[in-house]
């Protein structure tokens, strides 16, 4: 019986939301094909999470709980994953589209001689195959891709799939996997780690995002965006160019190769609206653009626009909103 295997990721000692979404996707495919859904759970001290994977849609959980999996090393994880894949022999392997999948998915695909579609946002379960939808050309086009190999691998963008359940009554099998990793040495040694502190709120969770691009000109100007964001309990985002110019740290980058946000209101200031940026914010409920060029593409996806130099607009906007919101 072919099957679907979902790679389970962990966030704050719990099964991550994207993993639940992947299990939801797997259950939708399984509803059509009747094949079993398994989850692969790797880490150290994580055995207690197996039942929540079952409740989230897994029929069986292959768990490898090992001290050596405490710190994430792709090549060590890969060995275990390849062993699990060899046991399960799945038709489809689904990864939540997170950082770890960037290296796990292609490297596992190579080892299994399977094709991989990355950053998938939709799928169609046909009788002969599953066809995956993926934005291409900087999200200017959508491709429907079929994987011709017996094993198909896919990484799926978070927040594009509905999670399943959870259903507390579900029962599933738990299989303990022995890690054959004694002779697998981590490829890298971590010398230093710097974690940024979250200032007000994380970009992904913010109701309001105030973003700036090349038009801001320098790092100091971003202070005005921070002021507006603080007033609206929002977070500050940026384009790739603003990051490259050192105006803000890389963690602020929004877009195809940055964060994907969908706030209630998105302010785009001095941003042209390249498709790769739009890919990260087009899900916003309401988009406000301030740009001195009336032909800037950003206006074509905005709800309201102001054509002017932002320096003539922001100070008054902040002042007016402060007055209005103080009431």
């Amino acid at each position, binding site marked *: 019986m072919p099957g679907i295997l979902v790679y389970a990721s962990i966030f704050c000692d719990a099964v991550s939301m994207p993993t639940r979404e992947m299990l939801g996707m797997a259950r939708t495919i399984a509803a059509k094909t009747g094949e079993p859904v398994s989850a692969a759970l790797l880490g150290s001290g994580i055995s207690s999470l197996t039942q929540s994977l079952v409740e989230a849609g897994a029929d069986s959980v292959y768990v490898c709980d090992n001290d050596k999996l405490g710190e994430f090393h792709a090549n060590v994880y890969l060995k275990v994953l390849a062993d699990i894949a060899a046991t399960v022999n799945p038709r489809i392997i689904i990864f939540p589209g997170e950082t770890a999948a960037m290296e796990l998915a292609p490297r596992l695909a190579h080892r299994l001689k399977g094709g991989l579609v990355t950053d998938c946002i939709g799928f169609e379960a046909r009788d002969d195959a599953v066809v995956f939808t993926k934005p291409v050309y900087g999200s200017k086009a959508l491709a429907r*891709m079929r994987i011709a190999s017996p094993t198909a691998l896919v990484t799926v963008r978070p927040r594009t799939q509905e999670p399943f359940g959870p259903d507390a009554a579900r029962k599933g099998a738990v299989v303990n996997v022995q890690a054959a990793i004694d002779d697998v040495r981590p490829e890298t040694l971590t010398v230093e*780690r710097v974690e940024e502190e979250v200032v007000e709120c994380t970009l992904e969770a913010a109701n309001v995002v105030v973003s700036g691009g090349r038009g801001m000109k320098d790092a100091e100007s971003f202070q005005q965006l921070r002021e507006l964001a603080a007033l609206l309990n929002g977070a500050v985002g940026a384009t790739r160019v603003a990051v490259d110019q050192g105006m803000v740290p890389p963690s602020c980058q929004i877009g195809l190769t940055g964060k994907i946000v969908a706030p209630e209101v998105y302010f785009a200031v001095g941003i042209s609206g390249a498709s790769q940026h739009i890919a990260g914010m087009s899900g916003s409920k309401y988009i406000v653009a301030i740009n001195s060029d009336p032909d800037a593409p950003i206006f074509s996806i905005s709800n309201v626009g102001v054509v002017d130099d932002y320096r003539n607009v922001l100070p008054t906007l902040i002042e007016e909103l402060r007055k209005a919101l103080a009431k």
Partner: protein
Amino acid sequence: MHIVVCIKQIVDPEIPSADFKVDFKAKRAVQDQGEPVLNPYDDNAIEVALQLKDRDKDIKVTALTVGGETSQKVLRRALAMGCDEAIWLKDPSFETLDSAGTAAVIARGIRQAGVADLILCGRQAGDWDMGQVGALLAEELRIACIPLAYNVEKKGDTLLVKRETDNGMAVLEVGIPVLLNITNSSSNLPRYPSVKGVLMAGRKQIPTFSARDLSIDSEISNLIVVEELTLPSYDRHVVFMEGEDGPEKAVNLAAHLIKMNLLK
């Protein structure tokens, strides 16, 4: 130390959506719209290699591409920026390769180039936005691989690699050979080719290798089949804020946002 940078020519990713044209039959972008460009992340990768070379003249940097007739241009650009050599893997059968096929061909090309200690790829190519050739290539060559890298320093026989993480950055020590997938950062803003560089690059011989030269006898079959390409549509209608000057438009914008009850 020998660094190989894998670079790709792509349709200009900055073409606005409104002007972007798709060849629905060939299931890819119309190839001759605008000037094709060097994939921006590969530009960052070249910069990372050249920064290492700036500090150690013994380092040799080779740029390598798999591409058709026009892709010679990105190799010339890489040479003009300061790369020492270029390698062009060119064959009609290479034009429709998927990620796995591309990685397999690059691996053969790298073997032609001799020993490679450090291989740099871009984080993702802005045509198919796959972001997988680098990691596939590392597996193909059975070497270590680091994603989201943006800066490298030599430390004795090893390398110190700065990479982005989910909530910050990390410095990793890694032995060679290793493959890094390069992401953008203010530390690897690509340099422009100098006039002298352009002149020198124009005179340089670029060796090309066909499928036969690489001993690829049978057609490489694709694992990924593109069934259809479509254009998404956005249906938003923008309302422009009127006003004599910026401040007046700002007053109107603030009133509009409040009226729409969008802000709490």
